[in-house]
Every structure is written in structure tokens, then in C-alpha cells.
């Protein structure tokens, strides 16, 4: 039923740092199915951002193939890559990266510019997306008049603009306070649950990662561990501990009483 939207084979990425070679990614393999919500975790310098950038076609791998929607993007010429980025990818950044001189709606419209000819249509779609992320009524506000959480919502709406195959989020909650963190994670989780959006999220935050369905631990450019997140349980409506049915709103399993959103010593090693 679910078919891979992203296949990474034997991916290597090396940087030259002065005369030294830095292996940011080493022989990395990964398959992501359509509709998955994935968290990438790992210590600083482990290659998380590098991996995300390679998937997002804003960085080139040294070796290996990246296939998105059955297209080998490592073979796509540089001057055509912008189309892959525009049509297949939605980027969400830690520091939101909104254009300060454009209002919320205009920021969301940006990626549509090369794709949707009609200005009216772009406006309409941008308004709908802002509505989806809970920002209706804020369309004409410029970023500086929006809270950090609201700014990240605008960025999420912008990432959704062209109905991408994959949403790539690099520490989307990194600059947010606890309350906003939760709201953004909830928003992403709901997008995944309700719209089936494929999301790959880099995060340092275990709580945030737990809301995904699959957690990958990166170390020295390799995926060293993989674990199910609770989001999968929610999707499957089954307790990951005892298998009893659960509701999405539940914090603890009704049957075994174990907490549904805290997994002890996850990635402890």
C-alpha cells in the first residue's frame, strides 16, 4: 500500500575542511514511505542537516543516489533542480526564514510564483493554507508582528504551498518556547495524520521526536539506531506496550496504564 517516496542508497558526503576530509555522511541507506513522519536525531555534527540538505536538493552528495518519487535527483542537472525543490520539497527552518518585507500571505505565495500563473489563485491558496495552520486573520501581518510560533506556522504553510512530496524540517522547534514547541509539533503531526503529508524532521527534542512514527539516530554520518515513535501507535490506534486500542487524545494506555508519550531511555546509548 505505501510506496517509497524517498530512497537513499549508499550516500556519501565529504567536505574538505582545509586539507582535512570530513565525512559528513557515510554509506547511508534510507527508505521513506509516502505518509511517514520521521524524526532524525543525533549529536551535533552527526550529519543531520547535511542529510536533510541532500534530500532537499540544496546540497550535492559526493556519492550515492537519492530517488524522489521515482526520479533520481542526483542525475538531475543543476539548472533543473529548482523545479524539484519547488514542486517536491517543502522546507521548514529553525529560524523560520520568512521574508521580512512580505506579509504572511505573500510569504506563503512565494513558492507558487513559478507554478501557479493566476495571482488570484495564489492568493486563495495561500489564504487556505494559513487557515489550515490556524492563522486566518493574520494574512496581512508582516513577520515582525507575529509571534515566533506564528512565524513558524507561516513557514509551514509556505512549505505546503506546492503540495510537496516531502516536508523537510530542520529543528523546527529549536527557536521556540515549550508551549509553541508543542503546538508546532501537534500541527505537523496533524498534517501527517489528516493530510498524509510525508515529514522528515531533524530535532534534538526527544519529546518532539516521540510524536513521530519513526526515529532515526545519526552518528558520524551513519544511521546507528532506528525506533518506532508513538505517532505510529496513534496511527494504528494500538498501545505500543500491550496492544490494547487507544484514542488519539489519550496520554496513557487505558489497559496497561503505561504512558503513551514517554519512552524511557530512548536512544540512551
Amino acid at each position, binding site marked *: 500500500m505505501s510506496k517509497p517516496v524517498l530512497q537513499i542508497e549508499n550516500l556519501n558526503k565529504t567536505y574538505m575542511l582545509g586539507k582535512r576530509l570530513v565525512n559528513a555522511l557515510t554509506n547511508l541507506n534510507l527508505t521513506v514511505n509516502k505518509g511517514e513522519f520521521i524524526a532524525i536525531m543525533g549529536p551535533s555534527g552527526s550529519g543531520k542537516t547535511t542529510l536533510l540538505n541532500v534530500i532537499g536538493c540544496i546540497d550535492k552528495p559526493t556519492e550515492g543516489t537519492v530517488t524522489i518519487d521515482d526520479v533520481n535527483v542526483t542525475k538531475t542537472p543543476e*539548472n533543473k533542480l529548482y523545479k524539484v525543490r519547488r514542486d517536491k520539497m517543502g522546507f521548514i527552518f529553525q529560524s523560520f526564514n520568512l521574508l521580512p518585507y512580505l506579509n504572511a500571505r505573500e510569504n506563503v505565495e512565494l513558492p507558487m510564483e513559478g507554478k501557479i500563473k493566476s495571482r488570484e489563485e495564489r492568493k486563495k491558496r495561500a489564504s487556505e493554507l494559513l487557515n489550515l495552520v490556524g492563522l486566518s486573520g493574520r494574512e496581512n501581518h508582516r513577520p515582525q508582528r507575529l509571534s515566533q510560533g506564528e512565524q513558524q506556522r507561516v513557514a509551514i504553510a509556505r512549505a505546503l504551498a506546492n503540495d510537496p512530496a516531502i516536508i523537510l524540517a530542520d529543528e523546527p522547534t529549536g527557536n521556540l518556547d515549550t508551549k509553541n514547541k508543542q503546538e508546532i509539533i501537534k500541527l505537523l503531526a496533524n498534517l501527517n495524520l489528516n493530510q498524509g503529508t510525508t515529514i522528515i524532521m531533524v530535532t534534538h527534542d526527544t519529546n518532539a521526536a516521540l510524536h513521530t512514527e519513526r526515529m532515526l539516530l545519526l552518528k558520524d554520518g551513519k544511521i546507528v539506531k532506528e525506533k518506532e515513535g508513538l505517532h505510529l501507535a496513534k496511527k494504528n490506534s494500538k498501545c505500543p506496550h500491550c496492544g490494547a486500542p487507544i484514542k488519539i487524545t489519550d496520554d496513557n494506555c487505558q489497559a496497561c496504564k503505561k504512558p503513551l508519550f514517554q519512552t524511557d531511555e530512548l536512544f540512551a546509548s
Partner: protein
Amino acid sequence: MGIISRALRNLSRRKVRALLVIVALSISLSIMVSIPAGLMANQESTSAMANNLGNTITQTSQSINETLSQIDVSMSSNFAGFGFSQAATPTPNTSGRNGGSTSDVTGPQNFGGFGGAGGGQFGGASGTASPMNQSLYSDIADISGVAAVEEILTASQGSSNQTTTFMGRTFTTLITDYTIQGIPLISELVDGYTVLPTNITAGRNLQAGESGGVLLSQNNSKFFDVGVGDEVKIVNETFTVVGIYSPSSTENIQSLYMNLSDAQRITNNTGYITSLKVFTTSSELVDTVASSISSLHSELTVTTQQDRLNQLQQQQSLYEEALASAQSSLAATEATAIQEIIVVVAATSLIVLFVMLYTVRERTKEIGTLKAIGFSNKVVMGQFLIEGLLLSTIAGVVGIAIAAFAAPTLSSLLLPTVGTQMGFVNVGNATSSTVTLSTTLMLEAMGVAVLLGVVGTLYPAWRAAKIRPAEAMKYE
């Protein structure tokens, strides 16, 4: 939200910077416009100057040629018992006094006051050069090589004293109201030689055999306040104005012409003349004829045109010098203009270049973001090109508006002035011509502004397009 409105918002986001750039660009553009405008004005006035000088040079050459076969003959000044002082002539080279074509070399007609001291028949307010008994000199016509003899009576009429300061010295001159030129109106002379003014501006010239008619100069016409066909009282007889002439550079502006017999009668000089002009059959015979005249009549001053030729040639070289100097001064001006324009163009494109480079640098992260969300390099480049273009276009409009008001001031500040006085020759002044902006010049300036905008932005825009998004993301 199009690319242009984004560019406008970006400019207005950095208002002070945009304003400073626009001010700097518009000033350099207005300079850029004013320089060619001033140069054009200089070129116009120089070519007008060159024209004038060219005409004068041609006229002078003509009179050199015409007079080559002529000999002026008059009574030696010491023979008559009084002398003329050349020093009293205020400006030997100014028009009207630079040598009458017929008789002025030894008999300056302006000095009626001196003439007044002469013999009884020249008394009263009227004055002439030394008198010569007409009948005594009929033998000159028989000398071999003589083609024609023109007997001339010149008599100046004047009254007022005028002081002139020239080269630190003060001269008092008796100002002549007008000078009577009595010319024999016989067809041999009138039709065969240039004995009368040629540049008739109204009416007609004097004709052979005519009496009672007078040809006035424009000055005379003003002085008497009469026109063609009017009657005018000269000394104490009434004449009819047959025509008005415009004096050439070799004619006295105050001379009026009439039949010799009329002139002799009204000035009470019947039988007398003041000078003779001898036309030789060829210019080679001039010296021989001159010495024949001298040996026949030792009391006479005989002047060949060699002296006058020298004088005319001197004048000629002065004019040519003035022309050359005006032209080289224009060339220097053009060189300066080109240098200044190069500097301004370079400065303008550098301003655009550095501002846009700074802008690109400042917006590295924005560029990275735009690329990450799917903007092509072309669109990113276009974004910056349009911003640079908008800046320079606005600056262009402002600059042209400034230039429209300040072009004369700016160009006079920036360009050396062509022309002015050269020796005694007034060759005109470039600053007197107006510096104006033509529509073509304005359009060209606008084009240059836009071009400089593009040139200055091209590299920064290319830099922007080259930015690698993954790197740009790390940039704060």
C-alpha cells in the same frame, strides 16, 4: 506579489540607503548630462566664432588681393605744415579704422580737428587732410603702367571731444560726426574698379555721372536720422539719399560717398583733392609706377600697398591665431569633458556595484531561502537586476531634473571656457551661448543611467545567483 513590487519594497525597506544612492547617482548623472550640454554650447559658439573669423580672414584676403595693384598718393604731411599723430588712434585694429580701402594710409580722415588748422579753403568746422591742387597732378595718368587714377577728396565734419583710455594712457580725440568721401563718378572708375562701398543694404549705389545724390553708411543714416529717398543737409547743401551701405572691415563706418565735384563744392575746395589712388595695369608694375610718381612729384607721399599688405597680413595672422587658439581651446575642453565623463561613469557604476554587492551580501540568507523553496537562479538574478535598475532609473529621472535646472552652472564649473578676447580681436565668448538640454540628450542620459544600473548590478546579481543555498542557510 510580483518581482517588481518586491524590488520596490526592498528599496523602501532601506530608505536611507536608497535615498543616498539616488542622491549620489542623480548628482553624477546630472553632471554627466551637463557636460555634453555645455560642450555643445561651446562647440556652437566656437563654430560661430570660427565662422566670423573665417569671414574676416576671407575679407582681408580679398582686400589684400584687390589692393595689390594700387598706389595711394597724398601730400606729404610735413609739406602741408602739420602732422598727424598715429598715436592718437585709439585702437588701430578695430573695425572701421583698420585702413580705409582707398585713402587712409597717409590721410586719416577722422581727424577733422587737425585739418581745421590748414589753409583757408579748408577752414571752419570742416576738416580734411592736406590739400592738393588737382590740376598739378594730371600728368600721373600719363605714366606708363597706370591704368586709372582716382581723385579723392576726404573731409571730416565733427565737433565733440572724447577721452579714451587705452593701455593706461588717456587720449583726447575730436569725434567726427561724419566723413565726406568725394569720388569721381565717372564710368571708367565706377564700373572698372572698387571705388565705392559694395555692401548696399538699402536703396542703390551711386552711379556714374550722378550728382546731388549721397550714399550713407548705416552710422550716417542713424546720425542724420534719414533713410533711402530722404533729403539730407550736408554742410550747407541738400542731398538725396540714394542708398545705405554696410561698411566692410576696411571701410570707415562714418564715411558718406558723393560725387567729387559735389564734395569739392560744399566743402569749398573746388580744384582741390586730398589724395589720389593710382591703379596700375598689373601688380608687378606697382613699384616702378610708384617711383615714377615720386620722381615727378617729390612733395608727395607715395604709398604702395606693400605697407598695407604687411599690415593686413599681420592682421590676418592675428585672426588665424585667434581661430587656432579657439579651436585648440575647444579641443582641450572636449578632452576635459571626456575625462570627466569617464570619471563620472566609473563613479556611478561603482556606486551601484558596491551598493548592490552589499545588498546581496546582506541578503545572503534570504537568497538561500528563496532558492531552497524553489526559486531558479534566473529569477534570483532578475530580482537583483530589477532592484539595481529601479534605483538607477529613479536616480536618472532625478538627475535629469537636476540637470534641467543646474546644467549651465554645472557645465561652467566643470568645463573651461572657450574663446574670449585674443589680442585686439574679440572672438566672442562661449559662456554667452546658452547651455540647454535637448530631449535627445535627456533620453540618452536616461539610457546611460539604465545601462549603468545594469552594469553595476550585473556582477552582484550574478554573485547572488551563484550563492549555494546550503551555505547561505548557515549565514546569519
